[in-house]
């Protein structure tokens, strides 16, 4: 799949006259350095949590397209709180994360309630909430939550150092890996791993997960088996929104230390792409997150060789399309094979039921 999309991207390069070899070479170079890999891991952790947030809903065919709004609203309130609360460091961090997840959950629960009570399409509802979020955030950022000390850009008060998530450089030094001073491996990576483990256990090992997947596989059968559709929608949307809020914390507490105009805008949609690419599975999403982050990091090195960095986006886009098609084809072939195997059990001459 990677090969196919790389070839398509190569064509996109050749047409205006660039050399694919130089382009891909530059991309790989930019990733293969210590700071490159660290940046990739940091981004991947963030994309992973966002991908899991989306995948939770996808597992029951609930398309939460509102992760953008959910994480932004979460980050806004969390950022405002963290900058102003002034509590002891670790408690501050815990409360900040809590607020982000709570706000994300609420923002996601609203379209969930609309679906349950008024049968409003979840895709429409969540996208609309994205729009409302933009307005809400714009208002609060410029009025109540604005840091009065900065007149150039609007942002919440800077978070004091002890309320930030630490980096893992010291631990790495312990195992003998020396990183350049400016490169920090975010501790959010650990949170991402935890999220992955919890995702796996809940969705694939718990009874709630069984009900969730059953609803996705056959909603009518799930209902007849005792699963309450409404309850599933509300719980799943809350979890999805909460995780989206959590994903935003990787930027707030490990990187920017403030919420403002410069906060990344498209994290939610990247999460959707990563979930699709990863087929909604805990390990698949991890690989997908890594690949997307790697491509992104690689394209940062393209400007240096005079090639437009948008090639990276083309690569990501084609990869997504190729992946979706490939998964569908694999699905179909899998079904035919399964049928062949099952009917091969019958002895020749037996009545073919």
């Amino acid at each position, binding site marked *: 799949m990677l090969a196919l999309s790389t070839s398509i991207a190569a064509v996109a390069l050749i047409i205006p006259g660039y050399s694919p070899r130089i382009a891909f070479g530059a991309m790989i170079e930019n990733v293969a350095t210590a700071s490159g890999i660290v940046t990739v891991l940091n981004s991947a952790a963030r994309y992973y949590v966002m991908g899991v947030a989306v995948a939770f809903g996808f597992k029951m065919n609930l398309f939460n397209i509102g992760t953008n709004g959910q994480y932004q609203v979460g980050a806004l309130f969390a950022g405002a709180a963290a900058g102003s609360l002034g509590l002891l460091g670790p408690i501050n961090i815990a409360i900040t994360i809590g607020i982000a997840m709570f706000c994300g959950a609420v923002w996601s629960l609203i379209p969930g309630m609309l679906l349950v009570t008024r049968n409003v399409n979840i895709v429409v509802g969540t996208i609309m909430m994205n729009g409302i979020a933009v307005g809400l955030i714009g208002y609060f950022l410029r009025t109540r939550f604005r840091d009065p000390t900065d007149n150039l850009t609007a942002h919440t008060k800077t978070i004091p150092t002890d309320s930030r998530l630490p980096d893992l450089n010291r631990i790495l030094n312990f195992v003998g890996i020396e990183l350049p001073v400016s490169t920090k491996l975010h501790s959010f990576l650990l949170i991402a791993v935890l999220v992955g483990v919890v995702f796996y256990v809940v969705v694939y090992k718990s009874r709630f997960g069984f009900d969730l997947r059953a609803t996705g596989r056959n909603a009518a059968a799930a209902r007849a088996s005792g699963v309450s559709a409404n309850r599933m929608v509300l719980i799943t949307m809350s979890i999805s929104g909460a995780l989206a809020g959590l994903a935003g914390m990787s930027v707030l507490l490990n990187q920017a230390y403030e919420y403002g105009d410069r906060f990344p805008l498209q994290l939610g949609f990247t999460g959707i792409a990563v979930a699709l690419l990863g087929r909604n599975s805990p390990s698949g999403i991890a690989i997908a997150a890594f690949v997307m982050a790697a491509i992104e990091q690689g394209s940062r090195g393209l400007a240096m060789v005079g090639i437009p960095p948008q090639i990276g986006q083309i690569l990501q886009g084609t990869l997504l399309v190729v992946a979706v098609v490939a998964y569908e084809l694999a699905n179909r072939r899998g079904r035919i094979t399964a049928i062949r195997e099952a009917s091969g059990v019958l002895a020749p001459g037996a*009545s073919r039921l």
Partner: protein
Amino acid sequence: MREPLIRLVGIVKKFPGVVANDGVDLTIDEGSIHAVVGENGAGKSTLMKILYGSQKPDAGEVWIRGVRQNFGSAKDAIDCGVGMVFQHFKLAANFTVWENVVLGCEPGSAVRINSALAKQQIMELSVRYGLHIDPNSIVGELGVGERQRVEILKVLYRGAKVIILDEPTAVLVPQEVESLFGSLKDLVANGVTVVFISHKLDEVLNVADRITVMRAGRTVAEIDVSPNISRNDLARMMIGADLPRPEAKRGILSERIILELQNVSVETQGRKLISDVSLSVREGEIVGIAGVEGNGQTELLEVILGLKEPDIGSILLEGEEIRHWSVRDRRDKGIGYIPSDRQYDGLMLSATLWENVALGHQRGYPASSNGFMTKEPLRRHTKDVVDQFDVRTPGVDVIAYALSGGNQQKLVVGREMLSHPNLLLAAHPTRGIDVGVQALVWASLREAKREGKGLLLVSADLDELIGLSDVLLVLFRGSIVARLDPQSVSPEVLGSYMTGANL
């Protein structure tokens, strides 16, 4: 001897994993009613599809009137005078009869349909062949039997001289069956040849001139119908054994009531889907619900299962009022459910067999404990289900999609039976299943009765209802219009209650 109208010689057709037709020969004489019988999976439908042109054979020849044919599509077959009436009608309910009949070959120019001509032609056909259909009726307002005759008109309009019918009586009540057979005889009297597929041996013996019996992709017999041939003779040719009988022993019933409905009504937008229904199911009793589809059977089951709440009335399970209970609580309390359409709400086709066995019973042993799924006990339990109910599968990790329909049904029945319910809701449990599996399902239902479970049986198979039920209730337009003794009721009386003729 006249040249036979249709000759199929050595037809072979294979699908992945299955040989549907294994060298089939078939001869049909002009102006006769020819029946093709066999179990599900014997290859009848495939053979007819080849004759009709919608499938191409891998080997073999199709001869019509002594001329070898090579149908590329159904259109070629129709041009040659062969038309097919399917089990699932392809009619637009909002159009009139004549619009449906001419759809696809409208008389007139590209801009203006010559509706007057169309209506006239259809009227002629209707009269000539004794079909009694008014071209101006709206199809949505016609009954099932009449809609079937519209389908027949469709093929006649396109010049068919041979009409193939696929399981035509599957959707009809006894009176409509008689009516259809009358029409078939009229068609034949007017020079049309009729071929029909069926697995209802009584009817076949009633109306056909000649019968071809198929088994496992081959023709095993071709016989002229005579009074000497009995249902059992045919059955033995079809499955190599005698027909299974649904009869359950009438024992002495317990007095303990498991399920009771009191004056239950369900409305929607002013219309009563279920109207003042009261019934009870005792321990060890099979209550049969007869009725034409669409008269409230689905809603009745939904209300008992908990998918819908009644607007009026009480539902008592072992004396407890459950009308407000969730589906989950009712399933956990011991209501088992065999749905009419296993693929719609009985199975997760993309999941493994052991996951499917947990469906409906995922709370508690052996599926889960303390909120977590317990895979090993569940797999072991699934092996029990597979063994006891003869589900033919290489293992319990197979995806449900890969199983044949009959095996899927056996899995569902086994799952419900082995969950030890005290009330079993069974909707059309042997629909679309061949005779062998049917026998096993009936045996299971009889076993459930013996074990003292209460059983509510909704079915369109009158043999099944009469054979298994202790008491027969007829549902018509949401009300119970009759309470009959299955031992003494005749199919005609039953049919008249089902169609509301007795009111």
